[in-house]
């Protein structure tokens, strides 16, 4: 993994005290296990009757894209050492409302711009507070969650906002080249995210800040700028989810995106982004999103009801977090 070069240096290489530690120092046990789980799940999925059909796969690709965009945003926050945000789902809802509202007046392009800008602004404001004052990111995001829903409720009266023209996209545009438009948007978000992390100075700063805020300070980085940018991008990606949801259902509602924060952080952690920050990539998040979504579909096809998926998602996250610790201790 190239982008984690900086963070790798900050982890002291301790000589293994036992033979097991000697092995785990060299072969990353957690990643090995992760690959094994991915392979096992892939084989199970392929062997599951009904999984490998075009409608099933298209539905899978569409649904995973909604959480996927939020997960791309969450990855930025987790990588920068701010653990997670509880307000990205609400941000998506705000973006959906802004999107439909502007779309009804000025058309699609203006709507998309308004949706993305709304997401980015809401989130950047939190990043500014967190970055410049070093306020606790969890608390700020919880406070923002209450504020965003309050303001949304004030503005919309908890009503559903319909698209005037009936449909955002013509039928032909729902699946350009046979791929759902949601998936294309998700892949675009992933590519933009990974480009930022791999090829820009900003990306390097994200990894540095995530590895150690204090060392970034000592180096003379203006940390608050990078943190604000991290949150702005996260909000923008979450805004994309809002736009996609509104496009899909041709309306916007405060309820959009509820619970996506949890699904997104689950995917990010399962993919192997370190919860302490400074280590990970968008590809890992993509893997995590795919794993969680595939697991859900497979469970459903084997007749497990929806509620089991919640439990298994929770257990997977708990397991991953615990396994991550073994690498560090």
């Amino acid at each position, binding site marked *: 993994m190239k982008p984690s070069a900086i963070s790798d240096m900050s982890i002291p290489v301790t000589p293994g005290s036992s033979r097991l530690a000697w092995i785990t120092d060299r072969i990353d046990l957690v990643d090995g296990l992760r690959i094994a789980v991915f392979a096992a799940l892939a084989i199970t999925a392929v062997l599951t009757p009904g999984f490998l059909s075009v409608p099933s796969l298209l539905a899978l690709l569409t649904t995973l894209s909604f959480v996927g965009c939020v997960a791309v945003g969450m990855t930025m926050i987790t990588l920068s050492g701010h653990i997670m945000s509880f307000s990205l789902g609400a941000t998506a809802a705000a973006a959906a409302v802004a999107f439909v509202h502007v779309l009804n007046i000025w058309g699609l392009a203006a709507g998309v711009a308004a949706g993305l800008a709304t997401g980015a602004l809401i989130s950047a404001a939190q990043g500014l507070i967190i970055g*410049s004052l*070093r306020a606790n990111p969890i608390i700020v995001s919880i406070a923002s969650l209450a504020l965003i829903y309050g303001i949304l409720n004030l503005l919309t009266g908890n009503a559903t906002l319909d698209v005037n023209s009936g449909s955002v996209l013509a039928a032909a545009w729902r699946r350009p080249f046979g791929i759902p438009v949601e998936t294309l948007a998700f892949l675009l978000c992933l590519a933009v995210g990974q480009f930022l992390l791999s090829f820009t100075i900003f990306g390097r700063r994200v990894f540095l800040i995530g590895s150690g805020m204090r060392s970034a300070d000592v180096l003379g980085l203006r940390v608050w700028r990078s943190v604000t940018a991290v949150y702005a991008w996260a909000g923008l990606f979450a805004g994309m989810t809002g736009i996609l949801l509104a496009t899909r259902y041709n309306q916007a509602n405060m309820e959009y995106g509820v619970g996506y924060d949890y699904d997104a952080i689950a995917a990010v952690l399962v993919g192997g982004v370190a919860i302490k920050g400074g280590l990970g990539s968008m590809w890992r998040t993509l893997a995590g999103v795919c794993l969680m979504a595939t697991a859900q579909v497979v469970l459903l096809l084997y007749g497990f009801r929806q*509620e*089991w998926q919640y439990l298994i998602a929770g257990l997977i*996250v708990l397991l991953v977090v615990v396994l991550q*610790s073994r690498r560090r201790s």
Partner: protein
Amino acid sequence: MKIFSQKTRPYLILLATVLVLAVIDRGRGNVLSGATVFSALQYLATLGPVALGLSLTMLVREFDLSVAGVFGLAGCVAVLLGGDSPALGLAAAVLAGAASGFIQGLIITRLQMPSIGVTLGGLLTTIGLAYVLTGNQSLTFDNMDLALFLSARIGLFTPRSIVALALAAAFAMALYWLWIGRDLIAIGSDRRAAHTAGVRVDALMVLVFTTSGALAALSGALLSYSLASASPSGLSEVLVPATAAAILGGVSLSGGTGTPLGVTAGVLMLGVLRAGLNALGAPPFAHDMSMGAVLLAVAILDAPGIRAHFERLQTLTRSRTETQAP
């Protein structure tokens, strides 16, 4: 004792809230009434124990996200098992909450994990368990007598709010007089120093998380009994107010400060705010917004950065006066 300090903050905020609401009301008596006190106490009954448990984990510089999940899970467990004997259901619910906290505490201390990650897993798992146990449906509780008893008014109180107040008083006394309070503050202030001084850090941390789980479970179970229903969803809305109450109650995120009485004042402040806004005829989202705004304000005031800015400003002005003096 200073009037404006971390210790007096919760009571001052509570007082300020009452005053502001009364001024907005302009003496019509909508806010300053028994009804407001009653509904604030009902709010305390639901939220008080959860905020108390959460604040204990914050006291030792950790954070228990799973209280929200445990709260909902306990309600479902109590209603499922309490059909014949409510006491059994309550005991099972509290035991489940304590077990969840115990396991998470063990993981956190044994593996030296950040509690946010572990309790996030715990939160998702307990929410999932609640869904599985109830089969994704809302349950009804047949014992209406118990529901009515728990909601029966005794003056301004109900049995539920008396339980919450008694718990707050018990914890306040325990932390004030017993060695445990001193040890918890030591852990929260400087874990390594506490360990060196002979504090049993790990055991106490596990105890704190177990207590936090049990308190959240107790509160969730009693709420479900009094509502005569339980459902897996919708109960997770306790996390925001519980955190807000703990922070408003003078618990610092950097650990080592906070008292049960302060947290109780914090919960009461949110309850008064809600009841007062209702009495004033404000729309329901006004409470959400003011709670978010207050929490954000306290988060900013508590931020280490703002203290650094402030100190820089102080030294700047001090050096200026010093250079002017000679």
